[in-house]
């Protein structure tokens, strides 16, 4: 037991690598804070384009969304970070990771917002228009708020997945939480930094994870 603790929860190691881990956590958090609003915005934009109700546009959007949903996020990152430079298109890891997360999640958020907009009864829009409210204002102030409420559960769940997906940044040498833990582990020859990083991820994300679980419970109960 003592040997186990010395390896997996070595106090000296933990104290010495904690500042490094916290600096990594900061990078992780900033990745999520930059990528999440951008993804939400582009997802909402895609969903609003569905409202144009142009047959060709709708078909193109479905194809794009399904493409985004069927390419693993890591494959996308590898293309952006390792393949685009062959075209002379080079970008810093931070930008590459944010771009990857935004493209990947535009598909997911777009699909969620689309379903949300479709879930708002048509008469809401008709009533707004009949009252002489302009179409953009009807969409923005009447339809979108109800749509967002209807899809709050998948939105929260996907936001959590986005935050978790920032860990792939470690594979393009971004010094975020997972990466610094790996570097530290190579220096101290014990897995404490990795265990500590996992614990930090858990501590930071767990409240959101509980929230998502509660939302999902409500959704599935409403289904029956």
């Amino acid at each position, binding site marked *: 037991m003592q040997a186990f603790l010395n390896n997996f929860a070595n106090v000296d190691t933990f104290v010495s690598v904690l500042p490094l881990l916290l600096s990594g956590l900061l990078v992780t958090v900033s990745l999520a804070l930059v990528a999440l609003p951008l993804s939400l915005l582009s997802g909402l934009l895609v969903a609003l384009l569905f409202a144009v109700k142009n047959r060709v546009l709708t078909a193109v959007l479905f194809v794009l969304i*399904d493409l985004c949903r069927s390419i*693993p996020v890591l494959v996308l990152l590898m*293309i952006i970070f390792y*393949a685009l430079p062959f075209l002379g298109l080079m970008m810093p890891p931070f930008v590459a990771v944010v771009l990857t997360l935004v493209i990947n999640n535009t598909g997911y958020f777009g699909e969620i917002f689309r379903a949300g907009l479709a879930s708002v009864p048509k008469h809401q829009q008709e009533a707004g228009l009949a009252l002489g409210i302009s179409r953009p204002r009807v969409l923005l102030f009447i339809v979108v708020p109800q749509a967002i409420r209807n899809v709050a559960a998948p939105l929260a769940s996907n936001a959590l997945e986005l935050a978790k997906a920032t860990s792939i940044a470690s594979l393009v040498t971004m010094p975020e939480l997972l990466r610094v833990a790996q570097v530290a582990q190579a220096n101290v020859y014990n897995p404490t930094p990795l265990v500590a990083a996992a614990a930090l991820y*858990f501590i930071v*994300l767990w409240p959101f*994870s509980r929230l998502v679980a509660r939302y999902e419970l409500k959704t599935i109960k409403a289904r*029956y």
Partner: protein
Amino acid sequence: MGAIEEIFFNGEVIGRYWGEIVQGLMLTAEVSLLTVVLGIMGGLLLAVLKCFSNVVVDVIFAVFIDVFRTIPILVILFLVYFALPYAGLRLSPLVTTVATLSLVLTAYSAETFWVAIQAIPRGQTDAARALNIGAWSTIAFIILPQAIRLSIPLLCNRAIAITKGTALGAAVALPELLGSAQSAMSIAANPSPLTLAAGLYVLFFIPLVLLSRWLERRSTRERRA
């Protein structure tokens, strides 16, 4: 245009590495299949165990689910591959990837199945008891069939999302589709293998994405009907 073709769709490079990349695809398919089968069965098992709840089961269930739903897959993968050897447990890249992904899917599907089981009205269980049907039979033949049906659209999305995590296997030297394409790319100094891999991923996952869209739509229609 010719330059783009030579860089991203180089027939000569693709021809040279085609065999390895297709082998990678096979490995991806294998890992995906194992993950889905193990993850769904694991989740179902946990959810059923939870039906006979006692304090110990409840605590283990809650901790297991929250841990595997909250920590990123890549972090768990690295813990299994780089940390467990310190405890004397050295797993191959294939076992590491399958174990990690199916544990994560187990956590998600256990939660979904459990929620669906709870959503079945209590009256069903009472009716079964009144008809003198045993506890196991009630769960197996009355509750589970309805609960599984209720969970399918949600699970389908989740299973696809986690199965796409097979690409993370490349990070622990598993020569699956992405891994084989990456090594081909670095040897050939040309990204065409990666383009090919991306195309194959799309071909592999598009039918699943369409299937889940169809399931989702069908269940929505049922609800409205």
